[in-house]
């Protein structure tokens, strides 16, 4: 059984590499395939415009999708485990809405704050971080997971209403630019920003791996964790902290990417058919990467005709896939 899971993971790994390379062949500017090959195989020999586009535009975008997909999927995996609920995603703790509020403040109140518009990542991260500062002590005080879930949703609601107020009193241009943020974006990040997402993913991944034994026992109930001498509070906080980091850093740079964090861990769980988080962590990361890369690939392929925001694409392409899987598997479980 374990061997089968390893084969499946290897398949996902190969698929990630394949989709990632394929992703470099498409973009808003048309570049002939042989030129892409040329640039990729001999990066130092050419110094054409194509070279710059591929290395400085397409490569960071591909890496963004790769890392963000993995991060969101891993965050969703941990939330599903924590709440023992297949409907939990990275946004259940209210971080995404917090980031949204941060961005809304930066856009709508920029004259008051004397900041330049478009300096969003820091505001988004501050918003998410602020919600994290609220949710961590709450999680420490309230031991019941269902209550925590409801509180997360309530925090989201509060943040969204605040955004609503700001939208209501602002002019149309600002509302438009906030709306653009909510659509999410993959492109336009510098290597440094991609690097920061990578660091976030790495730390989140490490926390998840260290916690994988606890997550495996988590579903049996807290008594069994105590019986095996695991610290429940520590295991829970590790899951929450890892999720906050992963979701916060991605939302700061890419906007609120929906769907991937909910769907890809769910599909990976049911395809690998395991509850061992050692495999699930790897699988969720690979699955999330594939999911976001493929969606962004579609956007790039059609970008010459029509421009689709990433958040629309993930749901538009993702939802039919999920429905298909439900019909095939009959039942999705965490």
């Amino acid at each position, binding site marked *: 059984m374990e061997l089968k899971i390893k084969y499946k993971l290897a398949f996902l790994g190969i698929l990630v590499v394949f989709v990632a390379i394929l992703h470099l062949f498409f973009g808003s500017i048309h570049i002939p395939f042989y030129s892409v090959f040329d640039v990729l195989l001999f990066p130092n020999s050419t110094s054409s415009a194509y070279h710059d586009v591929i290395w400085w535009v397409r490569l960071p975008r591909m890496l963004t999708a790769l890392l963000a997909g993995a991060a969101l999927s891993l965050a969703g995996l941990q939330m599903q485990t924590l709440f023992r609920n297949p409907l939990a995603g990275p946004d259940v703790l209210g971080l995404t809405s917090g980031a949204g509020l941060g961005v809304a403040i930066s856009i709508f109140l920029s004259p008051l704050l004397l900041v330049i518009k478009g300096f969003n990542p820091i505001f988004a991260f501050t918003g998410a971080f602020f919600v994290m500062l609220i949710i961590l002590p709450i999680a420490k005080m309230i031991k019941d997971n269902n209550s925590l879930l409801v509180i997360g949703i309530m925090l989201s609601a509060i943040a969204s209403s605040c955004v609503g107020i700001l939208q209501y009193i602002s002019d149309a241009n600002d509302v438009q630019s906030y709306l653009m943020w909510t659509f999410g974006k993959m492109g336009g990040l510098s290597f440094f920003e991609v690097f920061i997402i990578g660091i976030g993913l790495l730390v989140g991944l490490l926390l998840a791996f260290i916690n994988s034994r606890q997550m495996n*026992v988590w579903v049996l109930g807290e008594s069994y964790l105590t019986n095996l001498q695991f610290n429940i509070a520590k295991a829970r906080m590790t899951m929450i902290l890892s999720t906050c980091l992963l979701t916060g850093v991605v939302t700061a740079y890419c906007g609120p990417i929906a769907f991937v964090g909910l769907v890809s861990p769910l599909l990976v769980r049911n395809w690998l058919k395991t509850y061992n988080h050692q495999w699930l962590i790897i699988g969720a990361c690979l699955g999330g990467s594939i999911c976001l890369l493929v969606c962004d690939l579609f956007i790039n392929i059609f970008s010459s005709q029509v421009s689709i925001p990433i958040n629309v694409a993930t749901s538009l392409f993702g939802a039919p896939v999920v429905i298909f899987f439900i019909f095939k598997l009959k039942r999705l479980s965490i």
Partner: protein
Amino acid sequence: MVFVQNLSVGYQKGKEKNLLLDHIDVSLPSGKLVCLLGSNGSGKSTFLKTLAGIHPPLSQPADQTLIEFQKPGNIAIVLTDKLNLSNLSVYDLVTTGRYAYVNWLIQLSETDKHAINQAFHLVGIDQLKDKFVDELSDGQQQMVMIARALAQETPYIFLDEPTAHLDLNNRMEIMTLLRKLAHQHNKTILVSTHELDLALQLADVLWLVQDKKIVSGIPEELVLDGVLDKAFPLKGFNLKTGEMNYEKTKNKSIQLIGEGYRYLWTKNAFERMGFSVINEKAEIQIEVEKEYWKIDSNRYNRLQLLLEDLINREIK
């Protein structure tokens, strides 16, 4: 043998205390099957969890015995909650029993693998290794959880209501398995249950929750002392004789002649219907023969027909 003294069990919410068991002294004999009996809500589950160290006691015993007893790797637990996960494999579930011994990379050593296989073997569920948890029946799932506890290789195993939701066959199977583990593999097994019949037949020692205290002893002794009658005021059942007492609703007596099981069950049937069955001459006389029942020279092949006739005659 472990002595625990002065242990109080219950729940504390703020300043409000809900005391379930008050300053308990118990001794847990090694290599025995101990059944913790009590009615619903008497606090037996909470006591079991407190003893296992997964629920905080209301007052700690003054000495170190309890802390020493609850040290890592000493007690394994099996609780009642049903798992409903289609992606959790039975093997992975049993493997979690070894998690106290493996590092965070979950690399199973040969010792770990041996312990896991041994656990499957002891419970006799080798054929379930490749199944998933949601493919199991309730009884099988309980067996898997027992295997998981065995994989922990602890000298003590505590089970909370392991036979709840199970049918009689499965209940017997689980309890005899636990008895075997205690007697042949020197495990000390504490089982909380409200099923008096199984506990009476199979337990080595009974712990009886009564008036916030625990009375312990071998089953037979507790029956003879009448302690069980007090704890289980069963209406219409005499624990010492094992007989049901039926209300005599019909004002008729029957003289029943016969012997063996057929006699006993026939007697039971009439008593259930409200007749009084006596051993001396009565207005109705029934003979229990090997093949049939005889009343006033009428023969009946089936007891049901005899009963119906008798009741019809009664009405007339």
